[in-house]
């Protein structure tokens, strides 16, 4: 699995990197134009000339950014094409005069207008929102095709690539009547003006009605696009009126030049700014599932997806007893969604597992929908697996508690059997021996009396040993008097002196008391057997719903949790959801500490 995925990712990475080579021709062309300086406007208006020359590079960069952040969409490559087309109109600078190349470039150059309109009006969803937008782009495309045809076949002097009356005619010239050619040219340019105004108006309308969440990204593009198309529109109309009718509507003064210059600079920069604000949604989605906290779940996942997909109303729904329910548990009616919303249903083995309710615009981008469903499926699967894991852990925990409980019950049973069986028989035997001793009287055979006394001592020792054994299995004092007295009794029975500090009021849950007692008993036994300690301290206190207990000694230290005895204690404490630690004591020796939740 890993190999091919890594391979595809690497290939995609290299393709994306190699795509930036598309910047080379615009840069080379801009360099040529600036270095040669033979363009007619280069000397007249150097600054606008420089910025205009760089515009194609700006558009290409914006296109490449758009391409990488919205792979599979048409606007990225189209914007790159617009960046290239920006320069083909100036091919006459480098192409041999009198050939077809300058005219071909000049004809194609105009196509950046419809591309620009398409990119601006469909940003950022790559979809023209209405009929007016589609009509404008269509009309602009048709007019550009017509204008390109005129530029190739009916170029009047002064309207060719170099804008100079002395330019050679197009090699494809068909209509050599200057008036006709001029009229066609100016008329088409005049018609482009109102359409461009329409584009500007539609951009402004979209700007005003933008969703707040989309404004940050789309506003610079729409504002820049509106300003730029307005400028082009004025230029087209002004050109027609001033050339054809001799009535310039725009003063050829500084103000107009400044406004024109500003829009020519701000337009492309606005587009670049807006595009650069577009998040890479695939990356955002990858961040969601591969973030430091893992894939979010429930409402967190919903929030993360809303952010990643710029859709504040995106909602997740899951199958419920009555149909579908949101992450908040509220019912969701997938059949009653408004037309602007769409539901994508995920299934697992043919059974619906989740539904994503999103802006229906997303459906235009199959890649994005696939990404979205993959992320949600991953998160839902992850959530299900985590739930399974939690259930299994809970089962293991409960099973461990049951095992400890069963072991305790068995221990109690054995203690009872010892107490009621063997111990009672031995006690009865001791009493019988005592009776025999009394009945024999003081004058009996001394050897027989001595033997009888020895037997009585043996029986008493056996009873004591049995009692100690039974006590270790299930101390009656723990059952009768609780943990505090039981721990005190433990300390009193220890072969080495044990100082106690016990702050336990009342009784604790039986499981807690038994665990704490066994841990203390085992720890004190270990201290006596292995620690070479001269003293030990047993502390226990209950606070904030926790029993905290410790056994410290002044021995040689070196105890660790890997030993089977301590390992068993760790398991036993864990069965009560508690913790056990063993650490070296500050002045030497060992501290065994236990914390057990004991809130009832």
């Amino acid at each position, binding site marked *: 699995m890993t190999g091919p995925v890594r391979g595809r990712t690497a290939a995609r990475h290299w393709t994306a990197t190699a795509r930036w080579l598309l910047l080379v021709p615009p840069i080379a062309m801009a360099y040529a134009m600036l270095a040669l300086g033979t363009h007619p406007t280069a000397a007249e208006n150097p600054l606008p000339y420089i910025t205009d020359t760089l515009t194609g590079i700006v558009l290409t960069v914006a296109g490449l950014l758009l391409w990488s952040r919205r792979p599979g969409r048409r606007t990225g490559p189209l914007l790159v094409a617009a960046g290239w087309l920006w320069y083909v109109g100036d091919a006459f600078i480098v192409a041999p005069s009198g050939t077809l190349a300058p005219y071909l470039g000049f004809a194609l150059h105009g196509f950046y207008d419809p591309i620009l309109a398409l990119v601006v009006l469909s940003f950022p969803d790559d979809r023209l929102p209405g009929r007016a937008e589609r009509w404008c782009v269509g009309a602009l495309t048709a007019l550009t095709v017509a204008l390109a045809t005129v530029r190739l076949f009916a170029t009047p002097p002064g309207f060719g690539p170099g804008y100079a009356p002395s330019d050679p005619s197009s090699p494809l010239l068909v209509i050599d009547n200057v008036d006709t050619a001029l009229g066609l040219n100016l008329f088409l340019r005049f018609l482009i003006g109102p359409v461009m105004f329409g584009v500007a108006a539609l951009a402004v309308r979209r700007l005003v009605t933008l969703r707040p969440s989309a404004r940050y990204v789309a506003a610079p593009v729409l504002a820049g696009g509106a300003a730029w198309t307005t400028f082009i529109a004025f230029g087209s109309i002004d050109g027609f009126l001033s050339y054809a009718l001799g009535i310039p509507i725009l003063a050829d003064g500084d103000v107009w030049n400044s406004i024109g210059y500003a829009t020519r600079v701000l337009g492309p920069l606005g587009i670049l700014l807006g595009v650069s604000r577009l998040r890479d949604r695939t990356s955002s989605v990858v961040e969601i599932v591969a973030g430091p906290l893992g894939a979010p779940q429930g409402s967190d996942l919903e929030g993360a997806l809303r952010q990643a997909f710029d859709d504040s109303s995106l909602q997740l729904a899951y199958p419920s007893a009555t149909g579908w329910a949101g992450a908040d548990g509220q019912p969701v009616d997938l059949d009653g969604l408004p037309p602007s919303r769409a539901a994508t249903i995920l299934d697992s083995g043919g059974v619906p597992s989740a539904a994503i309710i999103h802006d229906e615009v997303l459906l235009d981008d199959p890649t994005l929908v696939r990404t979205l469903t993959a992320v949600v499926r991953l998160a839902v699967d992850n959530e299900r697996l985590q739930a399974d894991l939690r259930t299994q852990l809970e089962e293991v925990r409960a099973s461990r508690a049951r095992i400890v409980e069963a072991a305790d019950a068995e221990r109690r049973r054995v203690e009872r059997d010892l*107490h*009621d069986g063997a*111990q*009672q*028989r*031995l*006690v*009865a035997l*001791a*009493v*019988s021996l*005592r*009776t025999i001793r*009394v*009945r024999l009287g003081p004058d009996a055979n001394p050897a027989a009396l001595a033997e009888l006394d020895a037997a009585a001592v043996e*029986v*008493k020792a056996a*009873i*004591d040993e049995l*009692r100690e054994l*039974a*006590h270790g299995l299930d*101390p*009656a*004092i723990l059952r*009768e*008097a609780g943990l505090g*007295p*039981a721990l*005190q*009794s433990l300390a*009193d*029975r220890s072969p080495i002196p044990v100082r106690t500090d016990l702050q336990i009021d009342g009784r604790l849950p039986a499981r807690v008391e038994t665990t704490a007692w066994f841990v203390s008993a085992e720890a004190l036994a270990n201290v006596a057997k292995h620690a070479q300690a001269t003293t030990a301290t047993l502390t226990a206190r209950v606070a904030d719903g926790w029993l905290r207990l410790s056994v410290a000694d002044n021995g040689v230290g070196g105890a660790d949790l890997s030993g089977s005895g301590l390992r068993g204690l760790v398991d036993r404490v864990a069965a009560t959801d508690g913790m056990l630690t063993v650490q070296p004591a500050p002045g030497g020796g060992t501290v065994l500490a236990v914390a057990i939740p004991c809130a009832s």
Partner: protein
Amino acid sequence: MRTTLLLVDDHAGFRARARVMLEAEGFDVVGEAADGRSGLAMAERLHPDVALVDVQLPDISGFEVAAGLRTSDSARRIILISGRDEAEYGERAARSSADGFIAKADLSGDMVRAASG
């Protein structure tokens, strides 16, 4: 006159041997009971000088029997006995209504006399 004694213990074997031993040591075992409530009823009827009561009984505990005997004043002296040692019952044995505690393994006429004062 021999000291009268009531034995309350659920182990019949122990009772039988204890009766023999205590009678050999000069006590008059006037009754035996196998549980706490029977012991209380028997004491009401017999008013023994000493009641030897096992701590662990099948119905009520020896502590409760001792408290009942004390309340009804039906036994002059009350002594708890157990197969376990006194320390295992902690302060509860000390705070009980009994006059003394004897581990069963240590039971003897002298111990009963000492405990019953």
